[in-house]
């Protein structure tokens, strides 16, 4: 039992370290990708190819003056960034990063905690995340910060609805709230993306909004709000805010990969596992197969992180009313329609085909409807 406990704590520590390490290097890759997309070369001075850049950035942040404005609420001002970071890190605990490790006769899951309400945990914690921003923006006693914080709050609330509804479609298919069983049902190449293309688009859009990433980065738009909720922050407090955004991005990518792209599943995984078990014996082979799955999962995560950055340097920021329009008038109705289609497909017994037929029927109906009843509006 002791050794299981030890391994479990090692896994939890490992997940923490990996989240932080990946977030640190996300800051570096964000700059590199931005540079490449803009035909520049990006940071390349600190160490070979600039790979020590995150360290240099962190060092710089630590040596800046840690300033608290006189009129700010001191304790809340400190609490804001801490809360943002805490909630960002907590979500990664329930994500199944791999299958399981056989050790000493025990089967240990490669996951912080396996709870049967995994997805609820993610949602609960993510919706707490907005408190970090809200408290920070409010405590600064600066109207621009407050605007940023309010924008963050209302944006997160409106997009969480559509996000939740698009998740419910997934839950109807998997009939479980546990992230692990959702992953296990996507065994091999049976990924949810094939059943839920519309759900995926909705979820992706909402997760951009939840992470406050461009094109939904209204809480921190420097040209309207000075810098938004973190205007008054400096030094490592600002660092924590920015860093928590990157941790969030990592976790969101992981959730995306888990829910829609099969987590650690990949086509031909049974064959690989059988080969490895044949080659290295029952225990080592199984562990190696888990390792391969984990690596593939990380590949998917990195791909989504890249997509996040790619979109950031492609799309311009929304106007605030457009953002609300999109959330309430487009995404929520669409996710309800998606829910209906999924429900019909589940009842029909042929989820894959019925989902696509449902989607096609909806598109045709919508097209005809907008032609007949549509107002002559030129934008959404």
């Amino acid at each position, binding site marked *: 039992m002791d050794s299981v406990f030890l391994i479990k704590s090692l896994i939890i520590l490992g997940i923490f370290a990996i989240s932080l390490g990946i977030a640190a290097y996300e800051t570096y890759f964000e700059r590199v*990708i931005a540079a*490449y*997309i*803009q*035909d*520049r*070369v990006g940071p*390349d001075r600190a160490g070979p190819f600039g790979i020590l850049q995150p360290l240099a950035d962190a060092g710089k942040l630590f040596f800046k003056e840690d300033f608290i404005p006189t009129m700010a609420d001191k304790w809340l001002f400190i609490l804001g960034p801490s809360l943002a970071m805490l909630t960002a890190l907590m979500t990664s605990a329930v994500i199944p990063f791999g299958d399981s490790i056989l050790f000493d006769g025990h089967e240990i899951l490669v996951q912080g905690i396996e709870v049967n309400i995994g997805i609820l945990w993610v949602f609960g914690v993510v919706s707490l995340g907005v408190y970090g921003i809200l408290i920070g923006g409010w405590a600064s006693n600066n109207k621009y910060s407050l605007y940023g914080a309010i924008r963050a709050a209302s944006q997160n609330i409106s997009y969480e609805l559509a996000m939740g509804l698009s998740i419910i479609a997934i839950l109807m298919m998997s009939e479980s709230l546990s992230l692990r069983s959702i992953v296990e049902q996507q065994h091999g190449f049976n990924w949810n993306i094939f059943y839920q293309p519309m759900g995926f*688009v909705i979820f992706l859009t909402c997760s951009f909004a939840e992470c406050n990433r461009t094109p939904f980065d209204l809480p921190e738009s420097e040209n309207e709000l000075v810098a938004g909720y973190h205007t008054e922050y400096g030094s490592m407090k600002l660092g924590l805010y920015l860093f928590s955004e990157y941790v969030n991005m990592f976790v969101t990518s992981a959730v995306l990969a888990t829910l829609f792209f099969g987590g650690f599943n990949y086509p031909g995984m049974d064959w690989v596992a059988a080969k490895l078990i044949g080659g290295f014996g029952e225990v080592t082979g199984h562990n190696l197969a888990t390792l391969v799955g984990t690596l593939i999962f990380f590949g998917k995560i990195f791909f989504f992180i890249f997509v996040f950055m*790619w*979109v950031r*340097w*492609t*799309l311009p920021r929304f106007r605030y009313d457009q953002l609300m329009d999109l959330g309430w008038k487009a995404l929520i109705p669409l996710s309800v329609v998606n829910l209906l289609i999924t429900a019909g497909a589940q009842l029909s017994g042929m989820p894959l085909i019925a989902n696509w037929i449902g989607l096609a029927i909806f*598109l045709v109906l*919508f*097209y005809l409807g*907008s032609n007949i009843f*549509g107002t*002559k*509006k*030129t*934008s*959404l």
Partner: protein
Amino acid sequence: MQLTNRAKKTDKRPLTLAERSYLPGIAQGMGITLKHFFSKKATIRYPEQTRYLGPVFRGHHILKRDEEGRERCTACGLCAVACPAEAISMVAAERVKGEEHLYREEKYAAAYEINMLRCIFCGLCEEACPKEAVYLRHDKFVPVFTNRDQVIYGKDQLVEDMNNRYERDAWTKEEMQKLWAKQDPVNY
């Protein structure tokens, strides 16, 4: 009334369903940025890699010598008069016997100073000089200084070194572009 023939007719039809969903537009935009991701970078990595500044660049001053190594400046003071920033000052002296190999004219500048803190690199001194003595180099900046002692450039910094004569590398835009093409990662 049509003012130019570049006018384009705007498309005012209502957006189609695909356009209103934004998705094709977003995909197209992402395709464009992805193309740039793999394209050639235009950056010049400055300290290691410098670029030819161009024949019309006005930089560090130089006091030219003639072909025999004699200083051309005759301390006439016209550059100082022309200078809008009053950056130039000089002390004239008479050439004595035995110095003919040093100075071209009977009068020369015993001291010639340019205050680089005042100079605005307008090039008027260059234009004013009747002896073609003072020029602004096209290939060299005045280096950064951190102390006021370093800003007054005397003859030691200005007079041309005969072993390393200054010549203009390019005179025309075409020549300049040829030089750029040799130096840069991107061809202009």
